[in-house]
């Protein structure tokens, strides 16, 4: 994605709005041999500096930030008139009250029918290269229109969406201020929604205060959990950097027929692979995994501790049994809870009439 890092000194940075690392047993041994040992010899200080927050939100050069774009995008994001039924908004599945997810195992689409995957959070999506669990969109602008047009989701043909918006008088001024001289069309709708989504950033969490030098910001249990995260448990191999994701795709061994990224990229190693989700505010987003089958973070840790469930060629070599003790699992949970920020409630927009 072509981006120009544009300082949005505001909120962001920082204070506002605001799943982990496994064939037949012999294959499993091979996988273990091919995996680098967890870098546990490195110091805590070394790892802390790997998680420093960025100073600004990246916006693409062809859709730079403005307050008007954010406002228009937010209004569209919460407006159910973007769906064919007039009752489903982007925010229905990406609800700020559930940390921009929906709290359900799998999303609910048009006709109240269950979808195939869990609704992913939009939190910190500005830093995502590829969007959707299977990475089929390479920009937020491209992603934004997908669920609107999907017959299973909001079921709104894009030409019909444009017509609906053009016929709502008060939208004209919002679009004119956000994109002067441009029409209300698919492109401006997508760009506005993407602009708003980029402003949805997790705020300062206790973890951030700790790596900034406040030793009292998190518990000793959590500090041990951090060491495990970067060491024995190997979570960092996928949940890396400040947003706790490598923005990558891995088969972590869920028993599932959904081939995920493998349906988009026909490589052996991409079968059953899904995008690594952020762990920011993760304790606000149960249930977990792309299919919502793990109810608690403790269950997720147990899943990774046994090296996943499915045994197949595409299984990530990083997925090996961890042999964590009960105390180590408790420490990891304590650490994960320090990634949650206390953010201001999101103000619901007033819709144009």
């Amino acid at each position, binding site marked *: 994605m072509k981006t120009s890092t544009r300082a949005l000194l505001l909120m962001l940075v920082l204070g506002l709005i605001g799943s982990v690392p496994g064939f037949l047993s012999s294959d499993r041994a091979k996988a273990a041999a*091919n995996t680098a040992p967890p870098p546990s010899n490195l110091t805590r200080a070394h790892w802390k500096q790997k998680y420093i927050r960025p100073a600004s939100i990246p916006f693409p050069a062809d859709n730079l930030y403005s307050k008007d774009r954010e406002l228009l995008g937010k209004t569209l994001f919460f407006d159910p008139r973007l769906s064919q039924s007039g009752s489903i908004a982007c925010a229905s599945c990406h609800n700020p009250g559930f940390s921009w997810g929906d709290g359900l195992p799998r999303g609910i689409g048009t006709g109240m029918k269950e979808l195939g995957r869990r609704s992913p959070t939009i939190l910190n999506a500005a830093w995502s290269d590829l969007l959707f669990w299977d990475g089929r969109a390479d920009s937020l602008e491209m992603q934004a229109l997908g669920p609107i047009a999907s017959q299973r989701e909001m079921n709104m043909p894009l030409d019909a969406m444009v017509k609906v918006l053009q016929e709502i008088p008060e939208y004209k001024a919002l679009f004119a201020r956000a994109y002067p001289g441009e029409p209300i069309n698919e492109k401006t709708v997508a760009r506005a929604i993407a602009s708003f989504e980029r402003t949805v950033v997790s705020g300062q969490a206790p973890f951030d205060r700790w790596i900034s030098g406040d030793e009292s910001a998190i518990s000793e249990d959590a500090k041990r959990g951090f060491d495990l995260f970067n060491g024995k448990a190997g979570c960092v191999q*996928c949940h890396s950097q400040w947003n706790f994701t490598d*923005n*990558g795709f891995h088969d972590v061994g869920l028993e599932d027929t959904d081939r995920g990224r493998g349906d988009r990229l026909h*490589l052996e190693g991409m079968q059953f692979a899904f995008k690594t989700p952020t762990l920011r505010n993760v304790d606000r987003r149960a249930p977990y995994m792309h299919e919502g089958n793990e109810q608690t973070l403790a269950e997720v840790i147990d899943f990774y501790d046994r090296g996943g469930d499915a045994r197949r060629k595409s299984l990530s070599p990083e997925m090996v049994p961890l042999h964590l003790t009960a105390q180590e699992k408790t420490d990891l949970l304590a650490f994960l809870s320090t990634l949650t920020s206390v953010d201001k409630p999101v103000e619901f927009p007033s819709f144009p009439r």
Partner: protein
Amino acid sequence: MINRIIFGTLPTIALVTLSAVPLLAADHEINQQDRHFSQTEITIKVGDTISFKNDDEVTHNVFSTTPGMEFDLHRQAPGASSTIPFNKVGDVEVDCSIHPRMKLLVHVR
């Protein structure tokens, strides 16, 4: 006359063959470190090879879907290296399937 044509043509064929697969093909090394390739673009001669070495702490999967130059090096464990020849003139986009941010453009001249 016939002999002259034959003898006049052979060196030409030999030259064409030599230019398609140079005898002095070079190997270029591209490292994978910190979830990046060591460079984002490289220009090589047709017939040269590139060795992709994983100097990272995580697994990588280098591949290309550029028509006519498709390849998949499969999973590369940390420390592993794989070499692939580039025998066709053109631009080849090389990526890591696990980490889509990793991109390398190979200009084969």
